């Protein structure tokens, strides 16, 4: 269905090609997951399938890409619209009309599909994706998962043979992500559509995949069965790494497969206990009482109380729109809150200078407006009254050797996050807040972030992270707070809260349920300890 014939893609001004001599075929009806680090060329690979690369982005393509018999060199994206449906990372940015029904019809209108046919296909697509009750809704009022499903529906109506999805679940909470992936998997099974999908969080998709295309980072690409690629890859999701640790063969890709193999491991682990990870709890660094946040007639936070001791990493979880961001902003003096009080180290934060709270917002780039990394760092030093070079020193600890004359917009997601974190840490705030920091980060950047947050906590700070990423929470957080509808519904040590929850349990916890194991590293350490003591 999709054939890459010795494809080499070089962007203008780039010294190295992004893809080098890629030669592979994706067969009809396959669900193919594209994996690789940030910057390895995932988006380029996806864009090449419908001709956005190089027709829209510029650059030079050697070799050829053939989709359903059409060569992308002679067919620009609009001429491939009836064959390839393309959904970008941010569905809202790609919407052209206002309402769900019109959005579904848009692509068909462009292809001059006849009226009665359009009517029928819109109805079919509404049912297929389970969005029939949303048909008259305005697109901007939908939740993230609904928007993503509408975006998929809007490219499905012209009946394409290929569906290309760029990180379809990166902004979604675990349940909404499941909904979207279930819908995609249904398309593959029922309609035989070929799906090519890029995704950082392999644990969410790999058990749906027939094939994996691994982009190595040097421009080359390998296509093979998921088990083979992941057997020795560092990208492997926790369930595969658990299988590796326990020596299971074949390696399990889904929680279900792993559970069937897990019997002996359970017995082995029965004598060990998860390490008591909760640090000794000191006096609360942050005390917040009766927080209320409202937007118009919408109550985003309802009387929330929160105490966080120094040295703790607290994860705030909950579905999209449950009040996670509102909580973080309410703790910062620059944010809004309609009621309640906040004290950090016994003082009202607004009365202390520099502000004892650092907040990294959901879109970190909002904070950056200068032309180079060095200027941003200098500005941060001046703003907080710190000696020059403080911010740069912090940045060097987060990401060594970031070129000082680089433009902040040209940084990768992880580098940009590090820069903003360094800017916010310059005033040495005892309380650090991060809103959805893992969005767009690859696994290495995430591991790095786990280490950084651990170090911050060890240095006596309190860290609060709002996130959807359950695996990241399992590795990083000491304590988890679950919000729903602006209220706290669960609060406790990570293992307690997360293991019992169907949505927020990490893969290892699901495999070994009801035992309280969260990460592969924990199990490895426990097994080592058990072996040594024997």
């Amino acid at each position: 269905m999709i054939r890459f014939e010795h494809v080499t893609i070089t962007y203008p001004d780039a010294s190295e090609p992004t893809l080098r001599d890629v030669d592979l075929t994706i067969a009809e009806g396959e669900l193919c997951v594209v994996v690789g680090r940030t910057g390895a060329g995932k988006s380029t690979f996806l864009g090449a399938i419908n001709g956005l690369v190089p027709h829209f982005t510029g650059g030079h393509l050697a070799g050829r890409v053939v989709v359903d018999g059409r060569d992308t060199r002679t067919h620009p994206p609009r001429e491939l619209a009836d064959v390839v449906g393309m959904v970008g990372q941010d569905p809202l940015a790609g919407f052209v009309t206002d309402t769900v029904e019109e959005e579904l019809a848009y692509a068909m209108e462009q292809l001059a599909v006849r009226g009665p046919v359009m009517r029928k296909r819109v109805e079919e697509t509404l049912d297929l994706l389970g969005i029939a009750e949303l048909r008259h809704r305005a697109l901007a009022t939908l939740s993230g998962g609904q928007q993503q499903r509408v975006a998929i529906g809007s490219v499905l109506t012209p009946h394409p043979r290929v569906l290309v999805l760029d990180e379809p679940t990166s902004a979604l909470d675990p349940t909404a992500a499941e909904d979207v992936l279930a819908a995609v998997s249904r398309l593959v099974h029922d309609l035989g559509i070929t799906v090519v999908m890029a995704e950082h969080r392999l644990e969410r998709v790999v058990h749906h995949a027939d094939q994996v295309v691994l982009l190595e980072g040097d421009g080359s690409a390998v296509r093979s069965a998921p088990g083979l690629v992941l057997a020795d890859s560092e990208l492997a999701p926790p369930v595969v790494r658990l299988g590796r640790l326990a020596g299971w063969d074949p390696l399990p890709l889904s929680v279900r497969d792993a559970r069937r193999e897990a019997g002996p491991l359970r017995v082995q682990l029965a004598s060990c206990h998860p390490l008591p990870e909760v640090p000794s709890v000191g006096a609360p660094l942050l005390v917040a009482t009766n927080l209320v946040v409202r937007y118009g007639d919408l109550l985003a936070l309802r009387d929330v109380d929160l105490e966080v001791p120094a040295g703790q990493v607290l994860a705030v979880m909950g579905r999209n729109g449950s009040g996670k961001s509102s909580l973080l902003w309410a703790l910062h003096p620059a944010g809004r809150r309609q009621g309640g009080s906040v004290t950090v180290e016994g003082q009202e934060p607004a009365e202390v200078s520099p502000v004892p709270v650092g907040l990294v917002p959901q879109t970190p780039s909002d904070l950056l407006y200068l032309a180079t990394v060095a200027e941003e760092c200098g500005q941060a030093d001046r703003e907080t009254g710190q000696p020059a070079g403080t911010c740069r020193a912090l940045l060097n600890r987060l990401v060594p050797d970031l070129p000082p004359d680089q433009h902040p917009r040209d940084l990768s997601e992880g580098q940009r996050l590090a820069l903003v974190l360094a800017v916010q840490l310059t005033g040495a705030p005892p309380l650090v807040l991060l809103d959805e920091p893992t969005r767009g980060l690859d696994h290495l950047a995430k591991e790095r972030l786990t280490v950084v947050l651990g170090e911050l906590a060890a240095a006596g700070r309190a860290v609060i992270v709002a996130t959807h990423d359950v695996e990241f929470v399992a590795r990083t957080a000491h304590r988890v707070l679950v919000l729903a509808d602006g209220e706290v519904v669960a609060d406790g040590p990570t293992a307690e809260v997360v293991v019992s929850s169907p949505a927020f349990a990490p893969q290892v916890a699901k495999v070994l349920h009801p035992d309280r194991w969260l990460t592969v590293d924990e199990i490895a350490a426990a097994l080592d300890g058990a072996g040594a003591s024997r």
Partner: protein
Amino acid sequence: MRLPRPLHPGAWWVWALGLATAASRTTNPVLLLLVGAAVAYVVAARRAEAPWARGFKVYVCLGLVVIAVRVAFRMLLDGQYGEHTLFTLPELPLPEAAAGIRIGGPVSLEGVLAAAYDGLRLAILLLCVGAANVLANPKRLLKAMPAALHEVGVAVTIALSVAPQLVESGQRVRAARRLRGQAGRRFRAFREIALPVMTDALDRSLLLAAAMDSRGYGRTAAVPRRTRLLTGALLLGGLMSICIGTYGLLDSTAPRSLGVPMLLGGVAFGWAGVVLSGRRVVRSRYRPDPWGTPEWAVAGVGLLVAAVMITVSTVDPADLYPSLQPLRWPTLPILPAVAISLGTLPAWLAPPVRLPVNPARTPVRPPVEQPA
């Protein structure tokens, strides 16, 4: 039973512009208020539950402001016009050179009335346009444009959706800026907000362009070279004729033949060009608004009202412009009043926006038998 459906936006616009034309032909306050009442009645009867349908009050307020401003300026600048002096404002002495201009002084009833009539006429025109905006979804009107103007319509639709997005990202960036402390001064603050907002807007527009391209926007049919040339010639010729015609019409020294004939010819040429160039665009419309009997009726009512008023104003304009010198009560001319009252007919001619609720007919649940 008539099923609810939205009326074609074009029909609402024809009706509203018809009533506006009628209003522009008179300063009789009774007739003008009648037009206003007709418009308001139809709006109340056939307004949909949608965001764009909530703005009628704004137009009413705007109209009142127009009248107030008009009267205030008249009092201040040129109050003395008739003999019935109402009161005298303190007069501002002006130098000799400004003879003929007066600020302040006596204010006459005639002057105030003339200003009020004029202001009322303007306010009612505003109200008619407002009614069209409230009754017809502006975006659906764009969708109903000829194929050749499709690209323009899309551009306008997107521009309309960009404004709220800019506001949203502006708010986000301002909040983020507060995170870094209020270090910046005014000018710097502008730069700190404008730069991220602009880059954000650029990023979004690139994403949108990529999404539209991948969904088939801009597919064109192959058109033979001769047709393309003909289209270009027609459009260019039409445009030039319209320019010359307008000049001929406005400049009284220009020869007569330059005016109306050139203008009409230009419009005809231009229209042919637009239709021909529409052939290049291959697309279909999802659930287009039909143009059926109710549309003909509503548009016809608007045209009828306009035609009656134009005829009356050329044949017997006396009652349409009530006399101020000598001062007389405005009268109610029968024919225009009847014509304007017909303007309320769309309240019944247009299909309803929702099914009528009939509480008497609500099915009653059968009583549940209690287990013994």
